[in-house]
């Protein structure tokens, strides 16, 4: 009897758990299965199947009417086994012959080198809310297409998954290295006499959410990474592309740059502008070419490349310029397992340049970052891709990321503001590369309250890779905005201010951890002297909040004809659990509040 009651309770909990999951879902994967097979002859099979229940019109009309499968016909063969819908009435509708259409993948246009890639668009017919779609296919890859059998599977999908099974089969003589992140399910390892079979079974996997500020590289989501290759990275870097050879045209361009610049960083930045701006970036994931990368000369001649290809081109040009550099890739910290790296986890590619005493600086081949993009990314690692050598990783340290302004401004009767602002940016906040490209950019580092034309003069006191100190002389003619008889004066805001990060629309309900761009300390200290003809309407303010997300302090105080303003924000926790997000909102609501970012004045 006791067992019966316990069983009933368990069944009740399971049923209700599923109901709660389905209640807010537009669709539900009843079953999802992914099987990766390394055959004895070196070829590979990827067998995918799912049973998807459509719940809402959004699911049937907009989300799941079609399935998309990208494959490389030069090395892969796609076989679709099943595309059938069971309608609410029970009627089964197979996708007709004209429901299978090959198109050019969205990421491969304008690039002949990738125009052979194909995307099979499968139209699911008979779909309606309440219908269930059964879908199954296999991609067979020829031997040597991929450097090894590998996978990088996020467990959550666009809809909740009731039963998820991931299977990896390799010949008995082989084994895989694997890591299961953010999940404790154990692999079941067995043999069927031909294959060693690794199986992971998951149930009730919650869906991906659309919440903003989720972890970089999705590193906090459940994920299975595996690979059969101990030498995968060595195989990739053994390609001719890593020889970094250049042709005469490339040599000539480098020589032209070198005649204009002698500073190695300036030469590197000019070459970066060339690679970023003059060569189209083609967003083909390297896996679709089996990590085959075209040589820098081929990329140069074609005028386009993928991100790793452009990194190699960048490195080849730098090498030609005599600048010591290495191609590298970023991934989340801990992605390596016993020196076995899975290149599917690489999310960005860089060229890491050794500037000797000035240290290493990473430059992107696809965008011009204001700062070294690897500053203050403590949850990421940099994989060094050096031919002939095993993978090494570089740790990325957390730096002190500050924005600080100390200013004294005087407002006159005519709404003109003059004075001095001493400003400091450090860590990731220091727009070092932007300024190295163009020192005049120093005058464009205010984002509110003061415009470029309001800066009369500036003196750069210090400009190091992680620190910038500037003294600004301000001369602003129209500091006040009149409305309903009151005058409003916006306080200065600097580039890097947390108010610019887009946190203002964070909903109260949160299910995933929130990762801030960086931890930071921000501080504005201002003394604004008012003329005798103007009186302050803004009240004295004193706000102090301290919680698990950090601290915020706002103070407006009138001292004679002067208003003494302090605005301080310290965001000390990089990753906030869902239950901590309300603390962040409390801090940011004070920081955002426009009443604490402006002065309200009245002319007497």
């Amino acid at each position, binding site marked *: 009897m006791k067992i019966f009651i316990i069983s009933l309770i368990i069944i009740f909990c399971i049923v209700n758990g599923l109901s709660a999951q389905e209640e*807010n879902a537009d669709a539900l994967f009843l079953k999802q299965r992914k099987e990766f097979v390394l055959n004895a002859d070196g070829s590979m099979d990827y067998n995918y199947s799912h049973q998807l229940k459509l719940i809402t*019109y959004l699911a049937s009309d907009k989300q799941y009417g079609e399935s998309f499968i990208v494959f490389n016909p030069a090395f892969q063969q796609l076989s679709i086994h099943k595309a059938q819908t069971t309608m609410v009435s029970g009627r089964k509708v197979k996708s007709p012959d004209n429901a299978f259409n090959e198109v050019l993948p969205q990421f491969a246009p304008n690039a002949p080198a990738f125009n052979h890639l194909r995307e099979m668009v499968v139209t699911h017919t008979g779909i309606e809310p309440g219908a269930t779609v059964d879908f199954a296919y296999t991609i067979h890859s020829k031997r040597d297409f991929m450097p090894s059998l590998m996978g990088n599977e996020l467990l959550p999908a666009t809809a909740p998954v009731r039963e998820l099974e991931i299977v990896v089969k390799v010949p008995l003589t082989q084994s895989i290295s694997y890591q299961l992140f953010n999940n404790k399910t154990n692999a079941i390892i067995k043999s069927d006499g031909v294959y060693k079979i690794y199986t992971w079974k998951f149930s009730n996997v919650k869906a991906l959410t659309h919440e903003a500020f989720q972890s970089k590289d999705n590193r906090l989501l459940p994920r299975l990474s595996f690979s059969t290759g101990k030498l995968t990275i060595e195989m990739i870097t053994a390609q001719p592309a890593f020889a970094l050879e250049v042709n005469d045209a490339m040599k000539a361009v480098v020589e032209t740059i070198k005649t204009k610049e002698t500073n190695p960083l300036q030469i590197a930045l000019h070459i970066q502008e060339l690679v970023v701006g003059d060569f189209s970036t083609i967003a083909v994931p390297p896996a679709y070419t089996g990590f085959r990368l075209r040589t820098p000369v081929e990329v140069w001649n074609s005028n386009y490349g993928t991100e790793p290809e452009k990194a190699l081109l960048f490195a080849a040009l730098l090498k030609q310029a005599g600048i010591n550099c290495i191609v590298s890739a970023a991934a989340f910290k801990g992605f390596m397992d016993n020196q076995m790296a899975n290149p599917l986890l690489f999310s960005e590619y860089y060229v890491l340049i050794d500037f000797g005493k000035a240290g290493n600086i990473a430059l992107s081949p696809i965008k011009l970052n204001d700062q070294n993009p690897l500053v203050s990314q403590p949850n990421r690692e940099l994989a060094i891709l050096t031919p002939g050598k095993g993978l090494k990783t570089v740790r990325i340290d957390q730096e002190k990321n500050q924005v600080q302004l100390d200013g004294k401004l005087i407002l006159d009767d005519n709404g003109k503001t003059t004075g001095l602002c001493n400003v400091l940016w450090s860590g990731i906040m220091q727009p070092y590369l932007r300024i190295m490209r163009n020192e005049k950019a120093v005058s464009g580092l205010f984002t509110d309250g003061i415009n470029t034309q309001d800066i009369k003069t500036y003196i750069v006191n210090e400009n190091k890779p992680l620190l910038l100190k500037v003294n600004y002389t301000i001369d602003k003619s129209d500091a006040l905005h009149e409305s309903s008889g*009151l005058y409003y004066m916006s306080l200065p805001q600097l580039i890097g201010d947390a108010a610019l990060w887009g946190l203002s629309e964070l909903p109260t309900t949160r299910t995933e951890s929130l990762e801030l761009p960086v931890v930071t300390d921000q501080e504005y200290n201002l003394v604004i002297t008012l003329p005798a003809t103007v009186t302050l309407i803004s009240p004295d303010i004193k706000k102090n909040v301290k919680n698990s997300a950090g601290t915020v302090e706002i103070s407006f105080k009138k001292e004679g004809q002067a208003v003494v303003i302090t605005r301080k924000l310290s965001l000390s926790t990089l990753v906030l659990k869902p239950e901590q997000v309300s603390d962040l909102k409390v801090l940011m609501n004070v920081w955002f509040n426009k009443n604490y970012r402006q002065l309200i004045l009245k002319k007497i």
Partner: protein
Amino acid sequence: MGPGEGFTLHKGEMTFLDRCGVCKDKAGMLITMLRAAGFESYPAMTMAGSRIDYIPADQFNHSVTVVKTHDGKYKMLDPTWVPFLRELWSSAEQQQGYVMGVPEGADLLYTPVSDAANHYLRITGTSELKSDGSLEGDLIVTAEGQSDGAIRCNFTGSAKSDWKSNIEKELLRIAPQAQLLALDYGKDPYDYMAGPILLKIKYRIPDYAVVTADQIVFTPFVASNLFRGAQGQLSFNTTLKDRKYSFTDRCSRLVELKETVKLPVGFRFDRGKINMHSSDAAVSSDGKLVQQGQNLEFTFKGQYNKRIYEARDWEPFRLAVDNQNFFALNPVVLIKQ
């Protein structure tokens, strides 16, 4: 789907079984069903989002349906653009050229203007401004036609798990510290046939107003341009003084905003009353802010009568938008008596 498509209308049976198709398949499906129901119905071609010149050439990008009504006139139907819209013909396609494929032949015709009142957006609020500067209140948001669609798509065009946060974000856009206390969007936003969308919202905004010893400065919440996504007119840059060419909004539209704000005891609206008014056949506006007893009453009505405006309509259009923005951008000052 597949090769050899062109202008072929597939058989109704096929589309019905497939439960999918492009515009011409859906138009064909509707024709089949209407004919089965005894109506006289034909396909028509149109150019969604652009114009058709009066030359016999393929200038079409969209297929729709016409049905003959009891008075012998043809009525336009668009089965592709109207799912979850309370219209049979999408008014986002008003003032648009089309050619009917009727047996007697037809010349190039244009769809009529849809009355702005068919696409009303009404936001009605009651709120109380506390002496500490916080604002608490209720909003009722209702809409019809294309405006209904613009509000409803927060639900029908979005994952179910995001429905509440979509509405919460509307408040956060105005005040990041806003708190959504309650949201009622009815039984099922997908059930668009049940009636115009109706949202009931309760909110609180701490630190909303600037409070000094003798003044309170704030903006009535309904005046703050809430639900901008349903107010295409607000996306126009009205600093442009003149236009040489016609311009297009998404649809004709009637915007009606109303809020009663209960003021803290002892405070009065320093200007007593503000009126903003503009009048033109194309666009008109009428806004008012007035204190009545202890309440501040805000009303604004903007009537945008076209989808495609002529260049000379720009002045009344921008005037109406500026009038609406006036109330959003110029805070109210309350004086302690």
